[in-house]
């Protein structure tokens, strides 16, 4: 409206002796929580211009990887998307294995699928719950945080960590499922489904929530593809693109799951897509647990997967391999590879280059939220200041992943 006025030669600000307000939103602002800064130009409450400034969580991940042995990179990948850390593990391990040209045992693939989906659950719980929190619905947020805590109990029983689940290794995983895992997962999923229903009842049909989410931050299918959207934000526009379906990896071609898509691409569709993906992830985990065969969880090749501690402390050859792995790292042949997994926010890609040594020559990550954040101006320009909040939440910028 104001643009049209200006074209007609009528400048509102000049006529009424007012001016726009320039305001810094973040990095220390409750909605940006230290990870990003918005440089806003406000006309009253309407966002005239927005400049997104990322980089507050830049930790030189890619450069740091070049100084680590291949296996030493894993703890760094945990800290990319810290709401869904196991997914980052899996992506990196798969890229490295493709570079070597090995295939992990079937049981390991199932285990990786299970932790991937658990990570996705944890990420979606955090994202959707935080979305509710930022719209003022603290109670709904706490419901999903409880669900996430229960899920982290499971993760803790698998890998010992609650936030940065460092579980996957090149050529396998650190350990098998603990005893009693199946019973626990049954109990916890039942509780989480109840919490999901509670959350859904509180928000999905809540008129206030609908008004805040619907028609805000919408993007067209064409724009979404042009801006490199992937994941729930792309699916909310109606494109059924999911790496798990498009380029099946692990055992995703053996399990039955739906890919929810939206139609309008607004915040409410993004929310609905994520809510449904929570259910689908649970379905995948349950199917995996049913289908999972017995067998080894690591490749039986000490060049890539370190021998077990028992072996290396009693036998000579495993001890040598253990030593070589620690001092030199796995000698991955020269080459380059791109491997994508479906991350919490979209396509999480690893581009690895090896020059044939024990360290990666280059480890580039394609973070889904980087592309999403880039489109923020497109999504919120002309909207109200309050609309920035749900849009930014549904974009789900994870500082660790976006800035690396």
């Amino acid at each position, binding site marked *: 409206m104001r643009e049209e006025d200006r074209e007609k030669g009528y400048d509102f600000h000049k006529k009424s002796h007012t001016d726009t*307000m320039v*305001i810094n939103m973040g990095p220390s*602002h*409750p*909605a940006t929580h230290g990870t990003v800064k918005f440089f806003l130009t*406000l006309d009253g*409450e309407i966002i005239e211009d927005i400049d997104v400034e990322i980089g507050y969580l830049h930790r030189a991940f890619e450069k740091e990887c070049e100084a680590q042995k291949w296996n030493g990179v894993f703890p760094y990948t945990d800290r990319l998307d810290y709401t869904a850390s196991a997914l980052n593990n899996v992506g990196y391990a798969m890229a490295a294995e493709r570079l070597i040209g090995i295939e992990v045992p079937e049981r390991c693939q199932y285990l990786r699928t299970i932790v991937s989906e658990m990570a996705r659950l944890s990420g979606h719980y955090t994202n959707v719950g935080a979305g*509710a*929190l*930022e*719209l*003022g*619905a*603290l*109670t*709904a947020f*706490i*419901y999903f945080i*409880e669900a996430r805590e229960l899920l982290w109990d499971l993760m803790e029983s698998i890998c010992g960590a609650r936030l940065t689940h460092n579980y996957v290794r090149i050529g396998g995983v650190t350990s098998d499922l603990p005893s009693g895992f199946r019973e626990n997962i049954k109990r916890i999923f039942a509780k989480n489904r109840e919490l999901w229903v509670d959350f859904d009842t*509180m*928000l999905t049909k*809540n008129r*206030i*929530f609908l*008004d*805040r989410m619907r028609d805000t931050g919408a993007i067209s299918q064409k724009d979404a593809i042009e801006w490199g959207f992937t994941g729930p934000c792309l699916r909310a526009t109606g494109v059924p693109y999911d790496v798990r379906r498009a380029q099946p990896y692990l055992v995703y071609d053996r399990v039955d799951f739906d890919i929810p898509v939206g139609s309008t691409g607004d915040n409410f569709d993004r929310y609905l897509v994520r809510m449904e993906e929570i259910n689908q992830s649970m379905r995948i985990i349950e199917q995996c647990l049913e289908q999972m065969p017995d067998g080894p969880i690591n490749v039986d090749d000490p060049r890539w997967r370190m021998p077990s501690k028992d072996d290396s402390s009693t036998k000579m050859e495993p001890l040598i391999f253990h030593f070589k792995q620690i001092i030199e790292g796995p000698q991955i042949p020269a080459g380059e590879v791109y491997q994508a997994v479906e991350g919490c926010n979209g396509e999480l890609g690893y581009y690895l280059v090896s020059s044939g040594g024990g360290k990666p020559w280059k480890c580039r990550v394609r973070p889904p939220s980087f592309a999403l954040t880039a489109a923020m101006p497109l999504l919120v320009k002309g909207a*109200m*200041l*309050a*609309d*920035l*909040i749900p849009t930014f939440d549904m974009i789900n910028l994870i500082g660790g992943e976006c800035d690396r």
Partner: protein
Amino acid sequence: MMEAAINFLSQPLVFEIGVSLLKVGFILGLTIGFFAPMLAWVERKQSAVMQDRVGANRAGVFGFSVIGLLHSLADAIKLIFKEDFIPRGAERGLHTLAPVVAIIPALVAFAVIPFGGKYTLWGHEVNLVIADLDVGLLYVFAISSLATYGVVLAGWSSNNNWSLLGGLRASAQMFSYEVAMGLTIIGLVMFYQSLSLVVIVAKQENFWHWGIIWHFPAFILFLTCAVAENKRVPFDTPEAESELVAGYFTEYSGMKFIMFWTAEFLEMVTISGMCVALFMGGHHIPFVSQAMLLGLFTDLLGPNGAMLMAMLIGVGVFITKLVILLVFQMTVRWTMPRFRYDQIMKLGWKMVLPLSLVWIFVVGLGILSGVMPRP
């Protein structure tokens, strides 16, 4: 000596002044002394119950935390000793004045709300309201409009853009809902034919004359406006913590900050008191008249004792109704997400205002046609 004291106290003027001071003291004690810290506790504990948490239980003396009750005390002590921060470039005077302007109206407005009925004690009439104004309702609205200044001044004087936005939002919101709120009770005034809260309460002695029965739509609209006027979730855009950091009180700390907080609670209490007086029969118990209460106790306690007993029960009933409304408002606060600023304005001007106009029309028709018998 004793007799002289009694004689002195029974002089009409002395009795009047003494009783007035007692009433003021009681109301101050009830609002600032009891409800403000208790609501802080309820807010913590009720949200904890709703969210499946334990809630505040750390602050304690010698290991006794009294289910978190001492937390309010700890808060007060902490906030008194906190640095009183005034940002550079702020209007120092107005910045200091704003919390006072915010808190006083909430307290003063309670003066016309009857928290009991009229009782005859030792030959003197005691009316349990601080000021029995003929235009009590208008007084409440006039005073509560002043509360807006506190918020707007706080937002403007802080020299902070977030505060300014919060202050602007607050002014627009509070003025809009002031209008709507005034219109929601016009029907009630037509029904009871009085602007005095004391008269309105007196006319609700019969349960079938309660405002909530004849004016239920107005009750809902009034409560909506009341929550909006108090800037509580879902209408808390002036402080919207995820949008405006803390809105109009972003730059406040220590006791000034707690004054805004207390003002919010006190506004809740006052507006709930209004609601009780207008719609829920004030101190009256359904189906029990004052004469019945007196009859019950006269034999046992004598006429003055029975009067005192009736008075205590009346005040107790009033406070109970108040607490029910407060808990309801708290429940709403912990259930709903927050509106957007323009949606609030739309709700106020395009929904609540027309609906209350319609309700005035309906009440008018009802009274004229005799469907609504005026008490």
